[in-house]
């Protein structure tokens, strides 16, 4: 049969010239089958076939066939455009379901063509003629994808082509609507670049979601948040809360937590305000809520100010209403607590406090090695301390070194005081009382130094960052009642932080009046503060600020003015956060400006407007400025800004800036370092580390500084076991700090870096994206302002806004943390805390050898740890054992048995453990530290008592209790607020009152032994 093939298409080609149409048709149809083999032969006859296609007298059917044939030949000749236009002429003959390269290629081409036409049509808002045949082909393709069950493909095409109708069809017809929707959300975030279009897509998705019989409220609410529709969220929450099922209520709580994670304060507040009060006693609840609010505002001097947790008003109502409304009211208060951010802040605070593992010895070493008179390093140490203990409320170091601390003068004093704010970040209830000693005492000149007073106001802002309901009024009053620049500076920053993104008119006016006093110091803060207030609003006010910047700059050209304008420019940039194309006019205006400092602001504007979008246009513009601008400041910022634009795609950044990192210009190198630091923060990305490593030993001191800080940002929470370079880096830092001949700049960098590396008691990471891939507004803003520390050191504290705790915190219905175990299916050493440095021999601290983390030290530490564990284990009764031990023991056992059965003979394992190799997994107890890299190893135990409402490896997760009647064991007690209260279900009643007593020096409870539930 092999011989039964024609060896040439010549015969058929000849037949095309026959006079009879039948013969031509015969030839065409055969040629069409043979074209794959004989296209070179046919290609010489293409003109004949083309003329057949164009021959009007010819039967339509045959003309289409001719078109198909020509299209195929052109395809083989690589002329895709011609091929496509003929394929369109082929009409139904072009079979989209054909599985050939030809069809695939042409379809891809057609879809590209169509998508580009469609987007052109939408973007330029002029009519673009789209060939209906092209549209028909794409639609046929879509239809085919849908019928074949390739929904993801169909959605992708529909999205690309902006065919929302088809998108909807694909989603509704898919067999797993929920899955498809989730996929679609992801896709729309990562691939839809235009903001407006993304909005359209998301509103469509919400629509589809709502039509589902059992909608996925979690996702809907995420979409709604993106669309900025608080009413929708409020309605959903209300529905869930009113439901009889406890599960629904749990879901509502979970939704609230997820929303809070995105840190969109203004949105959260409006959701909260839209939640209707319980029917029967609406007035009372409103009043109750109001009273809490008003008390907060009015009691400006009162230390106990924020004491009453929102639980209290609810409690009063519950007694009098009918059960349905009672539950609703109860739930409502919970939700409101969560939405205001108080619940999550409180829990985070407790977690950070109880798990604080910061290493005071590092600080001690730094302190001792830093020269007394070097004020830069002195304050750097204070910064490092603040960052290291951010949010932990542990201020031991400061308390122990009050003498040393008192050497801080002027602005150093300001930052030292403000540092307290970072340490106590989120300590909403106690913030005022803690800062009370430093705050301005009624009227100006109450005795304290203006620097510490200003610092204290700034600290209050930091404590209440993004949750400033209670403190705003106080800060405003302070701002108004002073004329001292320094205090104004602190108050402005504080106000900006606490009222972040609320666009509060009154505050804006107050701050603006400070700006117009034309004081450099206060004006800088005012500029930033205005930016913070207006984050993402893109109002007219930005142009107003810009005009002012122009107006003033001609009069005064002094160095501090530069700082002021920098602040103002950054402020303007902040207003366009996340506006993407919407900000283009302003960006254009700023980047074209003659004054470099305005262009500098323009870079920030580009960075923030397109943050996390990886928008090609923005990247191109930034790269252009990075290499072409005349001002070093602008170039530095342009490179740095790349970090912001690319943080959603960290793998990209090292590649893009790698050339820039080798620039001759140190400013560009510095920018490259920070860009990598920002976008790869907390990822421990290998390429990022490789890029930064050479920069840490750059010839220019400030490049070294930037590289060290960036490196610390990248390596935060990466353990030495997962990347050995972390250890190297720690040793390098120590060496730089101890080296007397090192430049101050890089020394400062090293000190800050060691602070960042161990930030928040080693329990936080820098995260710019929430788990749902939304930008975290506060975090991004925090880092943006932080990068401004080039001009103004106190802004370093803004980095604390970007810290997010790496924790799994499971909560029960009462928002308490029950004892709950889950598994991390990886070697414990991969994610463990860094080993604490050892105590140096008493007075040789200055000559301390660099290699502290020698193996002997490790061994020693391990031995010590094991001894502790053994002690723990022995303390526990026969059936109980210490957490880590049982984990390791079982790991071995189950590995041997190749099964997951959890029954182990405890005594046997305890004895065996010393010689055992490291376990393959460990059991974590709620709440637990789960670093980002660890998340994929997290698994739930099958026979657990609690089931999470949403499967998530970290963050706040609500747990469904499968055995409600058994008593619960609560593991996270209100550690920082009171002496550990026993685990009771009635904790809520006492919580409010115990909140005031604050025992900072309380040791966290040792992990309690627990019983293994088999």
């Amino acid at each position, binding site marked *: 049969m092999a*011989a039964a*093939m*024609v*060896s040439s298409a010549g*015969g058929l080609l*000849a*037949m095309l*010239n026959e006079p009879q149409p039948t013969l031509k048709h015969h030839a065409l149809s055969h040629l069409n089958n043979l074209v794959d083999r004989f296209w070179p032969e046919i290609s010489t006859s293409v003109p004949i076939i083309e003329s057949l296609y164009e021959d009007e007298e010819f039967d339509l059917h045959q003309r289409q066939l001719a078109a198909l044939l020509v299209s195929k030949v052109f395809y083989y000749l690589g002329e895709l455009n011609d091929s496509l236009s003929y394929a369109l002429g082929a009409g139904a003959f072009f079979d989209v379901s054909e599985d050939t390269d030809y069809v695939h290629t042409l379809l891809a081409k057609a879809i590209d063509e169509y998508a580009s036409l469609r987007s052109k049509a939408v973007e330029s808002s002029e009519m673009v003629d789209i060939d209906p045949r092209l549209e028909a082909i794409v639609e046929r393709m879509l239809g085919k994808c849908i019928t074949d069950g390739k929904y993801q493909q169909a959605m992708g095409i529909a999205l690309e082509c902006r065919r929302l109708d088809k998108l909807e069809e694909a989603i509704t017809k898919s067999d797993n609507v929920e899955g498809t929707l989730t996929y679609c959300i992801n896709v729309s975030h990562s691939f839809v670049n235009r903001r407006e279009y993304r909005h359209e897509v998301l509103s469509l998705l919400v629509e589809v979601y709502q039509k589902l019989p059992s909608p996925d409220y979690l996702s809907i609410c995420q979409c709604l948040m993106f669309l900025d529709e608080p009413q929708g969220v409020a309605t959903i929450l209300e529905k869930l809360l009113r439901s009889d099922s406890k599960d629904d209520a749990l879901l509502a709580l979970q939704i609230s937590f997820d929303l809070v994670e995105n840190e969109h304060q203004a949105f959260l507040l409006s959701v909260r305000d839209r939640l209707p009060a319980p029917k029967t006693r609406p007035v009372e609840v409103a009043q109750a809520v109001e009273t809490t609010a008003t008390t907060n505002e009015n009691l400006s001097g009162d230390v106990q100010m924020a004491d009453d947790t929102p639980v209290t008003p609810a409690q009063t109502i519950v007694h009098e209403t009918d059960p349905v409304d009672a539950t609703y009211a109860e739930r409502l208060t919970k939700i409101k607590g969560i939405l205001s951010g108080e619940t999550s802040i409180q829990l985070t605070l407790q977690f950070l406090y109880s798990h604080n593992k910061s290493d005071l010895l590092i600080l001690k070493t730094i302190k001792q090695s830093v020269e007394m008179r070097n004020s830069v390093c002195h304050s750097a140490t204070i910064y490092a301390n603040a960052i290291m203990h951010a949010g932990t409320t542990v201020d031991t170091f400061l308390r122990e070194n009050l003498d040393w601390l008192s050497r801080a003068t002027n602005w150093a004093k300001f930052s030292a005081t403000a540092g307290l704010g970072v340490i106590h970040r989120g300590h909403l209830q106690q913030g005022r009382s803690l800062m009370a000693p430093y705050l301005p005492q009624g009227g100006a000149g109450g005795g304290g130094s203006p620097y510490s007073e200003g610092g204290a106001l700034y600290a209050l802002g930091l404590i209440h960052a993004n949750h400033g309901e209670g403190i705003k009024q106080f800060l405003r009053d302070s701002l108004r009642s002073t004329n001292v620049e320094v205090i104004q500076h602190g108050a402005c920053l504080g106000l900006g932080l606490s009222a972040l993104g609320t666009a509060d008119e009154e505050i804006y006016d107050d701050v603006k009046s400070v700006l117009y006093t034309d004081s450099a110091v206060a004006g800088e803060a005012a500029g930033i503060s205005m930016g913070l207030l207006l984050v993402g609003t893109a109002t007219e006010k930005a142009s107003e600020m810009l005009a002012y910047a122009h107006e003033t700059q001609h009069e005064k050209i002094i160095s501090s003015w530069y700082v002021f304008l920098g602040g103002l420019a950054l402020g303007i940039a902040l207003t366009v956060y996340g506006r993407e194309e919407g900000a283009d006019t302003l960006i254009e205006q700023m980047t074209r400006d003659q004054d470099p400092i305005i262009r500098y602001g323009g870079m920030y504007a580009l960075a923030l407007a397109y943050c996390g979008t990886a928008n090609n246009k923005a990247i191109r513009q930034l790269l252009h400025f990075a290499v072409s601008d005349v001002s070093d400041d602008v170039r530095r910022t342009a490179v740095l800004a790349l970090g912001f634009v690319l943080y959603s795609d960290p793998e990209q950044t090292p590649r893009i800036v790698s050339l820039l990192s080798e620039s001759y210009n140190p400013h560009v190198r510095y920018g490259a370092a920070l860009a990598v630091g920002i976008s790869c923060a907390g990822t421990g990305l290998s390429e990022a580390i490789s890029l930064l490593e050479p920069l840490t030993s750059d010839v220019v001191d400030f490049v070294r500084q930037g590289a060290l800080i960036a490196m610390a940002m990248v390596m935060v929470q990466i353990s030495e076991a997962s990347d050995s370079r972390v250890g190297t880096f720690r040793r390098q830092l120590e060496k730089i700090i101890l080296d007397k001949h090192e430049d101050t700049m890089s020394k400062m960098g090293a000190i800050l870096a060691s602070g960042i590396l161990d930030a928040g008691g080693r329990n936080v990471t820098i995260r710019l994206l929430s788990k749902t891939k939304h930008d975290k507004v506060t975090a991004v803003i925090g880092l943006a302002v932080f990068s401004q520390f080039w001009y103004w050191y106190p802004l370093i504290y803004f980095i604390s806004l970007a810290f997010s705790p790496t924790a799994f915190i499971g909560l029960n219905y009462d928002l308490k943390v029950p004892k709950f175990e889950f598994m991390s299916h990886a070697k414990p050493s991969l994610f463990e805390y860094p080993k604490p440095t050892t105590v140096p021999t008493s007075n040789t601290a200055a000559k301390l050898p660099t290699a502290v983390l020698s193996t002997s030290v490790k061994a020693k530490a391990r031995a010590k740890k094991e001894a502790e564990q053994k002690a723990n284990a022995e303390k526990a009764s026969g059936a109980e054992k210490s957490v880590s031990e049982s984990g390791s023991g079982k790991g071995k056992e189950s590995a041997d048995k190749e099964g997951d059965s959890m029954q182990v003979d405890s005594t046997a394992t305890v004895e065996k453990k010393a010689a055992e190799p490291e376990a393959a997994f460990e059991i974590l107890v709620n709440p637990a530290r789960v670093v980002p890299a660890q998340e994929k190893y997290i698994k739930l135990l099958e026979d657990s008592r609690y089931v999470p409402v949403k499967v998530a490896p970290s963050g706040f997760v609500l747990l469904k209790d499968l055995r409600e009647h058994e008593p619960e064991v609560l593991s996270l007690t209100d550690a920082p607020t009171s002496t550990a209260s026993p685990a009771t279900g009635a904790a809520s009643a006492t919580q409010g009152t115990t909140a005031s007593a604050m025992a900072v020096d309380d040791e966290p409870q040792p992990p309690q032994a627990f019983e293994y539930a088999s």
Partner: protein
Amino acid sequence: MDPQLTEVSQQLERFKAAFVRKDYNTCSDLLSRLKVLLTKFTSLPPLFENTPNAAQELAIARDIYEHAVVLSVKTEDQDAFERDFFQLKPYYVDARNRLPPSPQENLILGLNLLRLLVQNRIAEFHTELELLSSATLDNPCIKHAVELEQSFMEGAYNRVLSARQTAPDATYVYFMDLLAKTIRDEIAGCSEKAYDYVSISDARQMLLFSSDQELLTYVNEEHPEWEVKDGFVVFQKAKETAPCKEIPSLQLINQTLSYARELERIV
């Protein structure tokens, strides 16, 4: 027997009858109808399906196309010849092992070679030649064409013309006439280059015309630029061909030397 096959063979018989009668118009009509009928047979190229009547169908189809080729010669239609020959070719090449060789095969192949020669498509001529087996090359029909080509290339035009008498088949005569014309054109082209003028009698001899009248008609039709006066044919040679451009050697040498000097100065 398959009704379609019967129909085709009946039509073919009628075609043959008309062919013998030299009623070429009827022949063309019948032929086109036959061709349409043939498209119904799936056993034919390019499908080559194994139908029960495959062999008969192939044979009859080949017969039809062979007749078509011969007919086109008779009607002196070169386009039709080419078309039909190409359609016939698969029967010779691809269906070789399904059919007994056709007695007409070599004749037709030879004709095709001649046609190529006439149309001065020498490259294709050789391509076709390469496809033939050495045994076929000895066949008088093919050999005839090959020898013609050799003589033609050598310029032994008289041998080409005398070959007319040795043509293996009557159908060849048509092409041989055409060939004579081709040769005449060749000779004319050469003379044009070689001479400024030639006497009419020499020209007549050279261009192989039997009478002066024929020569004059030829000149008028084909080479109006030639001039006939005083018993001479004057070839209007394009004498004004531009003289060959001189190579600006001196200038180049100077330039190169100056470059070298400059280079030395830079280093």
